[in-house]
Each structure stands twice: as C-alpha cells, then as structure tokens.
C-alpha cells in the first residue's frame, strides 16, 4: 500500500523497462485472453492514463474528485476541434486537449479546493454535471449537442490545406505524420504516450513534492503547523490530474474522431473512481491494472448474449440449459454492471487496498513459505511495499 522506502532512480529505470516490455508486447500475450484486438488495447492505454492521473489526486492527496470525466470530455472536444480546424495531425490535438483541460481544471480546482472531504467531492460532481448539461444545451454550437461532434468533408483543416494535403472522397483519419491513429499503429501511439505519462507519474511519486502530497493525505492540519501552504500543492495535483484526463480524452478522439457529451456524465466520473479503487488507491501500478481489468470485463462480458450462453450449456438437457442461461444472462451482456457491482463490493469488503493488496498478500504468503524452506534466499525478498 504505502511506499515507505526511498527508492533509487536506478530501480525506477528497471521498473520502466519492465513495464515498457509488458505493454509493448501486449498484442502477443493478450491473444490467449481474446483481448489482443486494437480497439480494446487502445482503451487499456487510454484509461490507464486517465487512472494514473486520477491517482495523483486521489491516491496521493486523498481528495476524492467526482468530476474528472469533465476533463476527459474537454480533452475530446478540443481534439476533435483541432482536427476540424487545424490539422489531422495528432500532435496539436493532444497538446491543445491537454492544455485546455489543465486550464479548465485550474478554474474548477480554484473553487472546489476551498472545501475538503465530501464537500469537495460534491463540488466537483456539480461542476462536471454542469458541463455535461451545458454541452447538451447552451454549448450546442461547440459540442453539436446530442449528435456529437464529428468530422465532415467541409472542415477547414487550415494547416493540412496549407501543406497541400487534400482530403479524398472518404473522411481523413487522425495521424502522426502518416502513422494512422487507428488499429495497431493507434495502439502504439497510445502505448508510447501512456509510458511517457507513467514515467512522469513515477517521478512525481518519487519526488519531495509527491511526499508532501502524501503527507497532506495523512495529516493536513499538521502540514499547516509545519509551515506548508497546502492549497497550491492540492491545486497543482488537481491540475496535473486534469491534464492527464485531458490527454486521455484527446486520445479517445485520436482513435475515434468523435466527441459526445456522455463522456462527461457522472457515471464516467464514477467509473474512474471505481477503476482506481479496484486496482489499489495510492499504489503505483494499481490504477493501470484496474483500468485493464474493468475494460477487459466490460468488453468480454458485455459481448456475451443469450444465444452464446445457451450454446455454451448445450450439453445440459434443454430445460436446464435454458434455466442456467437465463440466470447467468443477468450477469453478462447488458447486465455486466451487476457483475462489476458484485466484484466491487467484494473488493471493498475483503481487499480494501484493491488488486494490489491481493497481490501483496499472495506475495507475502509465497515468500514466507519459501523463506522457511530456504533461509539463504531471504535476502532476495525485499519489502513488497514497493509496488
């Protein structure tokens, strides 16, 4: 759960190398799980970025924001506008999406961070719902309301036209100097950005700044009597996490150039809280795991339908197969949220530290067993509190 050791930068480089290897080989090792298709892997990366950014706020400072989907939405809209007005190149889209979300976070944080605890959560929720409703009403000229913001043939794309790139009959796709933002290349763009984001996030965790954020979570009033003005620290964490969300939102638009207001709804804000808690609040890698697990099950379980289930149980007598299928049918397909809810309840009750706590417990169990059999191996099992 907690990082009580001061870690050397060398260990962190090793950490990054391992993580990069795992992430970049995903198209291979995800195959047996049926998850190696680009759309899903892009989601893993994008929601991974969203979750680690959220963890900088929630995991380090303990401030529970219920409005982070607003930043995701702002990122998406900005990116699509960048595609429409400037260029189909993803770089301006990502930069504008991230920066604008950061500015938006600055404004919301300025008001919300005057309160803490439940009042802070409610304020962020109120702002996000406000943004959601505005996107459907007053801001329709910018957001295109219920239809969602889409690319059209007639878009200006000033930079592209100046560079002599003409759109042919079909709609252009976002690209990084010719590398398309969809399919496997899209996944690698997302993966590269996720790794860069993770590296910055790791540095924040390991910095005096990160330590101070954790001290705020631990005892905020002590921080005051110790000479710290906590507001600017919280503000910085809030804006950074808003920028991460904005980057994630822009990437959603890169992989699918379309932005709708539903991305800002409170359920989307709730999902990121869920992801972070499921993975392990305040742990380094937990939020990434949480994002992976939730997006995986969302895709796999919701793809099941009654026919698939009946076929799966066709070895049973008909009446029994139908019975089993209709009971299980409650938990899959559209009903997969029921499964998610149950899993979430179990996690919160039995593993409040999320998946990471489960992994740490298992690790301790295994290392205790092996150290009793082989004493000399003891030195090879450093504290597991690391991750």
């Amino acid at each position, binding site marked *: 759960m*907690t990082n*009580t*050791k*001061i*870690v*050397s*930068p060398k260990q962190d480089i090793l950490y990054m190398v391992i993580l990069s290897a795992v992430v970049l080989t995903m198209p291979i090792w995800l195959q047996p799980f049926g998850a190696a298709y680009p759309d899903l892997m892009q989601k893993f990366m994008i929601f991974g970025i969203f979750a680690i950014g959220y963890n900088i706020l929630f995991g380090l400072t303990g401030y529970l924001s219920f409005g982070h989907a607003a930043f995701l939405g702002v990122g998406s809209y900005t990116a699509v506008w960048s595609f429409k007005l400037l260029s189909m190149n993803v770089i301006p889209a990502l930069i504008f999406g991230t920066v604008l979300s950061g500015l938006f976070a600055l404004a919301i944080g300025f008001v919300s961070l005057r309160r803490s605890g439940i009042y802070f959560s409610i304020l962020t929720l109120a702002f996000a719902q406000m943004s959601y409703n505005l996107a459907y009403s007053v801001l329709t000229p910018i957001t295109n309301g219920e239809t969602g913001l889409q690319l059209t043939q007639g878009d200006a794309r000033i930079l592209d036209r100046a560079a002599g790139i003409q759109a042919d009959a079909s709609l252009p796709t976002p690209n990084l100097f010719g590398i398309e933002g969809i399919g496997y290349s899209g996944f690698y763009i997302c993966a590269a950005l996720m790794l860069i984001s993770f590296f*910055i996030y790791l*540095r*924040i965790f*390991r*910095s*005096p*700044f*990160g*330590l*101070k954020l*954790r*001290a705020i*979570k*631990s*005892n905020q*009033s*002590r*921080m*005051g*009597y*110790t*000479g*710290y*003005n*906590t507001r*600017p*620290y919280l503000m*910085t964490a809030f804006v*950074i996490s808003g920028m991460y969300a904005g980057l994630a939102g822009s990437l959603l638009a890169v992989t699918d150039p379309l932005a709708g207001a539903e991305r800002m709804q409170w359920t989307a804000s709730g999902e990121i809280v869920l992801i972070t808690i499921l993975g392990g609040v305040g742990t380094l890698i937990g939020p990434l795991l949480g994002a992976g697990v939730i997006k995986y099950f969302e895709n796999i379980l919701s793809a099941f339908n009654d026919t698939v289930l009946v076929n799966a149980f066709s070895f049973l007598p008909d009446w029994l197969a139908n019975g089993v299928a209709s009971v299980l049918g409650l938990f899959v397909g559209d009903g997969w949220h029921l499964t998610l809810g149950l899993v979430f309840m179990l996690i919160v009750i039995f593993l409040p530290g999320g998946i990471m706590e489960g992994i740490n417990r298992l690790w301790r169990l295994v290392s205790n067993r092996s150290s009793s059999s082989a004493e000399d191996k003891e030195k090879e099992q450093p504290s597991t509190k690391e991750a």
Partner: protein
Amino acid sequence: MSEYILDVTDVDKNFGGLRALSDINLRVKEGTVHAIIGPNGAGKSTLLNVIVGRLAPNRGRVLLGDEVLTGKQPHEINQLGVARVFQTPEIFPDLSLLQNVMIPAFAKRDGEFKMGFLKSLFAENEIREQAEHLLEDVGLIDHQDQIASSMSRGDKRRLELAMCLGQRPKLFLLDEPTAGMSRHDTNRTIELLQRIKERGMTKVIIEHDMHVVFSLADRISVLAQGAIIAEGTPEEVRNDPRVKEAYLGGEAV
C-alpha cells in the same frame, strides 16, 4: 528588536459566553524556558492555539520578536519560526519515521510551497542525513523505516519532537511533552530538552508534571480560569500562597 522573543499583550478569547482567556500578558525572553502551569481547563492550550494561529483572539496581539503573529495563517506563523508539539501527537501516521522528519526539514529549506515534482527524493541527501541525525537524537533511528502509526504513544511524542527540532524554530511550544510517558521516557525527554536548552532555543512549555517543570523552567506563569494569577522564578512560584491555593491545593512540592 525587543529583548523578548514572544510578546503576548492583552489577549482575550471567548467561546460564546465562556471567557477562556482574559487579559493575558506574557513575555518570554530569548533563550529561556518558560513554563505555563495551571489546573485543567485553565486555558493553557487555548493560549498556545492563539499563538500558533489556530484560534483568533477577540482582543490583543501576539508578537514574535518584531513580527505580528495575530491574524496570520498557521503556516505563515510556522515559517516565521514557531513550532509546536501537540497534546496528542500530530504526526503523519501513514509515512515512515524518516519521511515524517524529512517533511518539516523540507518546509524549513523550501518555504511554504515549492513545485519541483521531477526531482528525486533519493537525491536529497542533505535533508535525509539531517533527518537521520534527528532520529538518532531522540533515539528512534532503529525504527526509521517503520510506519509512524505503528509506534507507541511515547515514541510518537519523541517523533514529533524530532520533527519540530529539525526546523530549528525561534520559539518552540510544547504542550505536555511528557504526558502518558513512563518515568524512564520522561527522564529521557527532560534530558533531551535540556540539551536543546543549551542550543539557545526559546521554549514555552505546558506541563502538569512538576518534576519536569522544576527541572527545566527559568520562569513560570500560573494560569487559572483564563487569567495569569502569578509569574516568577520557580522558587517564587513555589512559595506563592495564591498558587498553592489555586493549583497545588496545598500539596507539598
């Protein structure tokens, strides 16, 4: 510059209809130890709360040297050089002892806010060595990687002492630093505080344990029902009949 490091003038503090402090005047000379004693509910902790900015007084003002403290935020007052240990230890329970002591050291060096989120904690050798030194001073160095919440109450107190000492405050406020400690730990704390006394740090100390008070204090103020009823050297206070009546209750000291 006045010769007093702490100068409390005409301070009143009311809670609703209750007058917690009335007309408090307190002057503490630089480099001395000033004890505040008095029965429970006399307003001792309230006075410290007014000094550190947790409470705003209804009347009066507090000076640190030539600096006005009244109306400032707690973090500003700390940055001016006032550190405090609380009656119940205020530490960072989720962090290791070493990290607990490093945080105040950062505040001393970097001020109330510093961004620098790409710098590694690992490279902060100076702060870490200083923190280790402080933990050694209070006898907690063997537990430096332990989580603070797992320590005993006495150890938490000593940890809090180390945290404040690392800031080398001009004025150090101690609210019952030995409450709940064993005789052995109390003696160790007295010894530690005496050592700091030699370093010339001004201290204001609230204490019930007369053994502690008389072995440390240069001057004593006696507080009863929100007012200072006596002030003087330990010898004077010990022999003051009003003090005996209000506080010591005729008990032989």
